[in-house]
């Protein structure tokens, strides 16, 4: 049993047993497999990379190859208990629309993303004057898939503007959980549990 990435472990711990899930940007299906095997979850996936899809399907997981920016429109309203978007929001062309779709398809939505306002990122820009290359943001400016960088406070403001309710939130630094205090500065990674008001 492989160890789940810390943000995925948080999500896995908070999905109700036996629930239904759509994992958007599911990668090779690590979270889906854990949810299926440990919590009896009916997990479906959407993933853009063919090699990842092949790996997930070869694990017996129902995963569809497709682009979250395009393919979510075909899923019915409130068709799963949880729609999950882990480490994918910042790669979407239209993250606002993808989030709308997530909250339409799922009765709840998990969203996790790397916090672009973490102090290391700020220092890199402030002192180095260079686009940050960190452990969670390892790509350089020209080859990064992350085209919509977002901070914890950006995301909170965005949710407020759109009337999305935050049911819970978790923050990670150095792969460890930390409190919500000063999360915008101190958290490397955020996980939000959301639902439409």
């Amino acid at each position, binding site marked *: 049993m492989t160890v789940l990435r810390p943000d995925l472990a948080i999500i896995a711990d908070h999905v109700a047993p036996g629930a239904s899930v759509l994992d958007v940007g599911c990668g090779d299906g690590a979270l889906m497999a854990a949810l299926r095997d440990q919590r009896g979850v*009916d997990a*479906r996936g959407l993933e853009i990379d*063919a090699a990842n*899809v*092949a790996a997930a*399907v*070869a*694990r*017996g*997981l*129902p*995963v*569809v*190859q*497709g682009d979250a920016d395009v393919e979510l429109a*075909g*899923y*019915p309203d409130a*068709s799963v208990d949880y729609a999950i978007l882990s480490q994918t929001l910042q790669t979407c062309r239209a993250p606002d629309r993808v989030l709308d779709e997530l909250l339409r398809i799922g009765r709840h939505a998990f969203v996790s993303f790397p916090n672009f306002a973490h102090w290391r990122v700020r220092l890199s820009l402030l002192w180095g004057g260079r686009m940050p290359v960190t452990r969670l943001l390892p790509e350089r400016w020209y080859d990064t898939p992350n085209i919509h960088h977002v901070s914890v406070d950006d995301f909170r403001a965005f949710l407020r503007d759109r009337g999305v309710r935050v049911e819970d939130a978790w923050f990670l630094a150095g792969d460890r959980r930390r409190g919500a205090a000063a999360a915008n500065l101190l958290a490397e990674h955020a996980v939000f549990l959301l639902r439409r008001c």
Partner: protein
Amino acid sequence: MSTDQRFGLDRRVTLTGPLALDGGGMLSPVEIAYETYGALSPARDNAILVCHALTGDQHVASPHPRTGKPGWWTRMVGAGRPIDPARHFVVCANVLGSCMGSSGPASLDPASGRPWGMAFPVITIRDMVRAQALLLDHLGVETLLAVVGGSMGGMQALSWPATFPHRVRACVAIATTARHTAQNIAFHEVGRQAVMADPRWAGGAYYGGEPPAAGLAVARMAAHITYLSEAGLTEKFGRRLQARGAKSFGFDADFQVESYLRHQGLAFVDRFDANAYLYITRAMDYFDLAEEHGGRLANAFADTTARFCLVSFDTDWLYPTAESRAVVHALNAVGRAASFVELSSPYGHDAFLLDVPELIRVVDGFLRGVE
């Protein structure tokens, strides 16, 4: 089990039916040529039906009796393969309308004692599927673990859960479509017209004389082009000349690709009946799963609980990825568990039969997930 004459290679059965056809009318009796591999489990829950393509046959994993060539899908079916007779009871039947032993235009019309020819009723993909269901009844298989096929076999695979929602637990549909497009129909019509323009076709009543080999060969040549990719043809042949140093300034097969196509055409007429080619291409052209279900493809999958696995290939322009994706959208709309991946291959439509290791891995994992 081994003494039961229903099971094994090169089986034939005559079923009373009658089989009610989509085009109206009944077919009775229904002859079906088929093969089985492996043993049906005591719980009868390990049966996999493999569906063949337009010019395929029941010899999925055994040598072809006429050509001696190995089975047509030994990459997928066999020991250590995704469909493994050690685990599965595998059934592959020659489709209705074909010419490898199942009822078709070349078989005898019991009323006249002569070959049916064009008096054979026009059949559909769903008729083929219903004939397969009759065979499964005969074999004592109520529910399939899976139905698996590529190209026209994939059409049957998709038609199975739509026609018998509770008789199939999983569907693997590769390089296929839920309906024939205008372009698909157009290519088939070229082939049919080539057959019918051959004077030897004689309105389909050529049995006992010379068959319309020239017309059928042209039909096969045209169709064969649609099975390959442009890049694949370029890589294989380019503009290279066939066993000559210069162009002949005549109409011999100067180019290797011409020689190759002529060979494909000639080899085909030795093993296939021209009328069967007309009937089966017609069945494919009539195929539109949405039309059969009130014009909405999702309706076709509303009643089944089967799980689906679809695979397309990036160089397949006959049934391109968009066709598989349309099926996936329909499955999502009714909440069916679906897997879909577009695999990369240089081989075009034919990729489903060729060496694509990812395909084997995907189908293997999918089937194990269902078991």
